[in-house]
C-alpha cells in the first residue's frame, strides 16, 4: 500500500468526476491540437502555394552602370555590353548550406533582336524552370522545347499579328511560334521567349546568363542567410531577396498562427478553470477523509502529494487522449479545407507539448485546492472526534 494506491482507488470510486475532468481537459487539449495542427498543415500548404507563386531571390551581374526594371522588380545593373554571369558558375548554387531550400533555379539571358526592322527583347529561358516560377503564365499552344521555337508575349503577337505556327524571322533566322502568352500585364507581354541555349546563340552570349531567378522554400530558413550564401558562392554578382513577397507570406501565416494561439489560450484557461472548480469541489467533499489521513499521521505534504498525483494522472490521460482526438479531428477536417491539398505531418514536439501542457495546466489548476486540502486542520476536518 502506497499513496498511489489510495489515489487510484479514489479515482476508481469517483469515476464520474474523473471522467468529467478527463473529458473537460481532453476537449481543451484536442481543440488546441486541432487548431495548431491545422495551422501547421495550412501554413505548409500556403507556403508551398506561395513559393510556387514566383521567385523570391534574384541574381544579377554586379554593375554600377545601367539598371533595368523587369517584372516590376528592380534588378541590378544590366549593361548589355558589359559582362554577364557565367552559366558554368551556377553549379555552385548546389554547394550552399541551404541548398535543400532551393526549389527552382531559373537562369535567363536577355538581349535585343530585330524583327521586321524593329527591336524587340528576346529572353532565353529553361522552359521547365520558368513554368514553375511563372505559374500564372497561360500559354495558348504549347511551351517551347528545343530548337528555334518561340513563345511570344501578347503585345508582340498583336504588334506583328502573329499566330501559332507562324514562321518569324529574328535577326534573319527562322523561328516557329509554338505558343502565345496570354496577357500578363507585365513586361513579359513584350518578350520573345526562346529556349536558353538558342537565345544564347542568337544573342551571341554562349555560356552566359543575364540573371537568375530562384524560388526558395523558406518555411524554416532565413532568406537573408541564403542571400549571403549565394553571394559568397557567386562573386561578381548581386543577390537580392524580394523582401516584400517573403514578408507578405510570413505576415499571413503569423496572423493565422496568432488567431490559433488566441483560441488555444482561451480554451486552456477554460480547461484550467474547470479543473480548479472540480478539484475544489472534490476537496470539500473529501474534508472528512483528509481529516482521517491527517489524524493517523499523514503529513501536509502527503495530502498535497495525493491531490496533485490525482490531478497529474487525470491530466496525463487527458493530454494523451486529447492529442489523439485532436489529430483525428485534424485528419477529418483537412480534406474539407484547401480542397484536400493540405496534409497532416506528424509533429513530435506538438505531441509531447500537448501532454506536458495538459499536465502542467492540471497541476497548476489543482495547486490551490491541493494546498487548501493540505492546510486543513485535522480537528476541523474531523468534527466527529
Amino acid at each position: 500500500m502506497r499513496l498511489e494506491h489510495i489515489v487510484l482507488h479514489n479515482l476508481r470510486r469517483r469515476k464520474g468526476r474523473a471522467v468529467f475532468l478527463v473529458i473537460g481537459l481532453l476537449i481543451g487539449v484536442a481543440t488546441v491540437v486541432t487548431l495548431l495542427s491545422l495551422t501547421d498543415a495550412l501554413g505548409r500548404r500556403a507556403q508551398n502555394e506561395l513559393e510556387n507563386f514566383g521567385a523570391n531571390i534574384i541574381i544579377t551581374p554586379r554593375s554600377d552602370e545601367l539598371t533595368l526594371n523587369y517584372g516590376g522588380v528592380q534588378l541590378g545593373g544590366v549593361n548589355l555590353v558589359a559582362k554577364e554571369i557565367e552559366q558554368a558558375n551556377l553549379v555552385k548554387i548546389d554547394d550552399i548550406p541551404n541548398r535543400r531550400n532551393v526549389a527552382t533555379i531559373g537562369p535567363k539571358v536577355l538581349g535585343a533582336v530585330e524583327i521586321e526592322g524593329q527591336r524587340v527583347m528576346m529572353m532565353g529561358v529553361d522552359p521547365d524552370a520558368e513554368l514553375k516560377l511563372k505559374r500564372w503564365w497561360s500559354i495558348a499552344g504549347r511551351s517551347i522545347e528545343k530548337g528555334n521555337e518561340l513563345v511570344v508575349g501578347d503585345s508582340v503577337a498583336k504588334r506583328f499579328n502573329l499566330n501559332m505556327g507562324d514562321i518569324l524571322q529574328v535577326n534573319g533566322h527562322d523561328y516557329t511560334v509554338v505558343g502565345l502568352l496570354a496577357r500578363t500585364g507585365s513586361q513579359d507581354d513584350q518578350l520573345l521567349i526562346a529556349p536558353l541555349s538558342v537565345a544564347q546563340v542568337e544573342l551571341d552570349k554562349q555560356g552566359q546568363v543575364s540573371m537568375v531567378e530562384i524560388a526558395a522554400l523558406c518555411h524554416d530558413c532565413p532568406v537573408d542567410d541564403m542571400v549571403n550564401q549565394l553571394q559568397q558562392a557567386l562573386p561578381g554578382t548581386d543577390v537580392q531577396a524580394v523582401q516584400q513577397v517573403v514578408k507578405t507570406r510570413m505576415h499571413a501565416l503569423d496572423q493565422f498562427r496568432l488567431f490559433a494561439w488566441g483560441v488555444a489560450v482561451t480554451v486552456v484557461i477554460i480547461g484550467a478553470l474547470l479543473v480548479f472548480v472540480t478539484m475544489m469541489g472534490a476537496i470539500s467533499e473529501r474534508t472528512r477523509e483528509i481529516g482521517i489521513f491527517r489524524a493517523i499521521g499523514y503529513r501536509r505534504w502527503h495530502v498535497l502529494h495525493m491531490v496533485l498525483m490525482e490531478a497529474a494522472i487525470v491530466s496525463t490521460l487527458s493530454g494523451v487522449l486529447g492529442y489523439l482526438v485532436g489529430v483525428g479531428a485534424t485528419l477529418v477536417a483537412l480534406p474539407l479545407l484547401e480542397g484536400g491539398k493540405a496534409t497532416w505531418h506528424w509533429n513530435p514536439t506538438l505531441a509531447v507539448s500537448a501532454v506536458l501542457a495538459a499536465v502542467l495546466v492540471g497541476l497548476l489548476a489543482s495547486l490551490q485546492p491541493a494546498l487548501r486540502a493540505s492546510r486543513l486542520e485535522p480537528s476541523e476536518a474531523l468534527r466527529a472526534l
Partner: protein
Amino acid sequence: MSLITLDKVHKNYINGADCVIALNKLCLTVEEGTFLGVMGPSGSGKSTLLSVLGALASPSSGSVTVDGIDVYGLSAEKQADFRREYLGFIFQSHNLIPYLNALENVMLPLAVTRFSADEKRRRANDMLKRVGLPDRMLHLPQQLSGGEQERVAIARALVNSPPLLLADEPTGSLDTTNSHQVMSLLKELHEDGQTIIMVTHNRENLEWFDRTVYLRDGQVEKDVQSCRDQLPQAI
C-alpha cells in the same frame, strides 16, 4: 513512570460572540499501561481532551507531554509524525475509508512508512487476525457490520504499534453484544501492556477501566483508581 502529563492545559473556543472554555487549566498524568476511562456530561471537555492529547487541537495555554515529548513544541509536520508513531485513534463513527477494503484500511497508516509492501501486508494481516477478522479482510466497510467496522478501526489504530491508544466512544454506535466484544478486545490489549485512554458515556464500560477520570466544565471533578466499588451512582 508517567507516559502522559498535562500541565494546566487551557483550551477555549470562540463560538460567535461567546468564548467557550472547553478545558480549564486541567492537570492530569497517566502512567504507562493504564486503561483510563474519561467520563462526564456533554460539554465537559472529554472530546477536547482527546483532541489535545492527540495533537489534533493545540491548547490555548499549558503543555502536553507524551513520553517526554512536548507535543505542542513540535512543528505541524512533526506533530503528524508524532501522531503516526505514538498514537492510535479509534473514532466513534469508525471513519474507515469507504473505497478501501478492510486490509487496505488497516494498512493506511503504513502507506507513508518505509516498510516493504510485504511487511505492510503482514502487519495488517496479523492485526486483523488479532481483532478476529481473518476472513473479512477483502470486504469493503459497507459490507461489514458496525462491530466489524469498529474492529477494523481498532486494527488500523494498532497497526503501527503505538504506545498510546485514544478511543472516542468506540461503543457509542454498537449494540450490547458488539460493545462487549469491542471492550473485551481493548481489555485484552490493555493486558498486553497497551496504554488506552477512552472517552465514553456508557457507565457499563466503567468495569473495564483501571482508572476513571470524571470531567466537568473542563476540569477533573473526580479521579478514581481501580476501584469499581467507589464509582459514583450517577454522572
